[in-house]
């Protein structure tokens, strides 16, 4: 019910909708953004503002038929935070680029390889048992630290690290098979 109201208000560009969204989903957005931004509190706050402004701008793209508001907000928060952190990293490491350096953008063949690799990885992740799959999503989608994963799943840090190591080995094995085909 609350979601319907939020969607209706934001689609109608009513500021109250954004207020409601912040009240209701603020903790979720912070939860998604924080591990990506790390310990930098200022960056986290900037990120949340950026996420909210992007939600406000791009909300027309949200289709309730395709998924829940929560899923969409999680994806929006994650992607905005990642973009912002990458942008900051690029800015921080900015140096004068020599003119003879080749462009970083991948060529068509490299793009095809990357896309195939991504599809293979996603397929391999889907084949994992549910508990392992959740750990992979926590680590590589939510970008959570091992300590956070351990705390939230009730594992010790050592156990969480061990589990992630075994999952990585399993995935490497699964992807090796694919690669040899």
């Amino acid at each position: 019910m609350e979601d319907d109201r939020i969607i209706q208000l934001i689609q109608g560009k009513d500021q109250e909708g954004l207020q409601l969204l912040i009240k209701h989903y603020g903790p979720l957005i912070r939860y998604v953004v924080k591990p990506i931004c790390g310990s930098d509190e200022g960056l986290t706050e900037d990120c949340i503002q950026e996420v909210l402004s992007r939600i406000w701008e791009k909300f027309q793209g949200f289709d309730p038929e395709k998924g829940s508001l929560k899923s969409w907000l999680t994806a929006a928060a994650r992607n905005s935070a990642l973009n912002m952190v990458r942008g900051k990293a690029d800015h921080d490491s900015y140096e004068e680029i020599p003119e003879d350096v080749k462009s970083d953008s991948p060529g068509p063949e490299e793009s095809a390889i990357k896309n195939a690799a991504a599809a293979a990885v996603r397929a391999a992740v889907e084949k994992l048992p549910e508990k392992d799959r959740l750990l992979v999503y926590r680590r590589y989608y939510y970008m959570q630290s091992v300590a956070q994963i351990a705390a939230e799943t009730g594992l010790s840090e050592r156990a969480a690290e061990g589990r992630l190591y075994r999952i990585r080995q399993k995935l490497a094995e699964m992807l090796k098979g694919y690669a040899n085909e």
Partner: protein
Amino acid sequence: MSDSFELNISSSLDGLLSTAMPAEAPAEVIKAVTPWKKAIKPILLGLLLSVIGMEFLPFDIPVNSVGLIIAVTGYERLRKENKAFRAGWILCLAGLAVCFLRIVLICFAVPLEVSRLKAGSVLGVISVVIMLLMIICLYIALAKVKKKAGMSINAGNAWRVLMWYVVLRAMCLIFGLRDTLNINIRHMFVYIVLMLCAFALLLHALFRLMKELEEPGYAMELCAPKISGKALAGTLVAVAAVIFAAGHFFSTYPTKWEQTNKSSVPPQEASRLAESGMSEELISLLKDEDLAILNGAEIRAMETDSSREAAEKNIPLDMRSFIVRKGSDWYTLVYFEFEEGTEFCGTNGLARDWAGGMRVGDGTIEGHLLPDYISGRMAYDPARPADLVSPDLAVDELFVMDPNESSPYMKYHLGDNFAVFEGFSVTETANKLRGYVLTAIDPPSREEYSVSMSFIKCKPGFKPVSVSAKEFMDSYYKANIYALIYQTDYYSTADLMCFTVYNYKATLPVNELE
């Protein structure tokens, strides 16, 4: 393509995984990835188990302990979230310590003064208080989480949990006092249904509490446990199991047996007693004060009805009963021999048992009375434990206990009968034991009295003693006088939880002496 791809996997799988993740995670992942669910669920489940166990079902202490063990795995991760969660964590550990103390009391043979009747009930009250404080702390903790998430601090469902917990606890208390309050079985059935309803409402409140946390729960910050929840729970369960096993196998009762010589009865008196049907073994066992009562008294041996013995296939036991009249004073004397050890697992015997009595007239409880005189002895030969006839004996005196202590069990179903409860030490080392009980009775007001003797063998188990006591009284309420080897002032509840009753009956034809 394959070579470069394989190289890519082995060199930077982490990077690949990060970039290959879909833009939007599947719905089940979104639902499952929360900071709070894995920590709050054990807390709520633990609370639930603790409530179920409380005097409502037989396994109250084990269920309560398991509940707290589960809860502590949740609290451990939330202890740094806010002070109220930390307080809850400390309370949970304290509750667990109390539970473990109660397990020690159950499993070890401890003096009655510190056992279930006193320390046990004090610990029970402490654990209820701890549980109440835990729920209050949970309310405060959740209100703080909501405040942190920028939401209203109303933690309505936490209040409901507290309210239904208090209601259920009060109902459990009344349920525990059902005998004292004289609640009949039909009303008790309705009451149990009401308790189940209160429990369902508590369950509902807990469920709503979970739902209420759905969004503010993301504001929680957890800390990694030093050891995993499973390992912690496993360790605590193992500790409880070790306590139980240690108590079961190594805890022993201090026995009170003392070496004594046969009493020297003057030959003339011994012959008179023998003529009245008393055996040499009985005469040699009599205490001086009992001999003084029997001296000059009219003694009549009674026939023993062994039909119950045959029906119940009990331990081999020989019982002889006498009615004794000396002037206006009346007594019953019951002598018994049995050939089997008591088989108390984990103990080497019982220490002093107790005796008590009560009278109920015309269906109205008049009060608890001890007989004017009650005496007895139990003996075996420590040098030749399989032999009954010996010059040297190890004896234990009858111990008389304050009957008020035993009143809850004795009240049950006595009708207008009179009951005497008494006991001795019993030892595992002897195969043959013999003893007698001499008890004053009121001048008989009817044609005959029955004397029945019940022997209780204890074996470890999880049957609650109170239920068994009721069953026991149900089975034997028809007898007018009971003499039974029963509890002790040193006992382990584990031993008393499951026991077998052996019953023998004799009829006293009062008219023959009037």
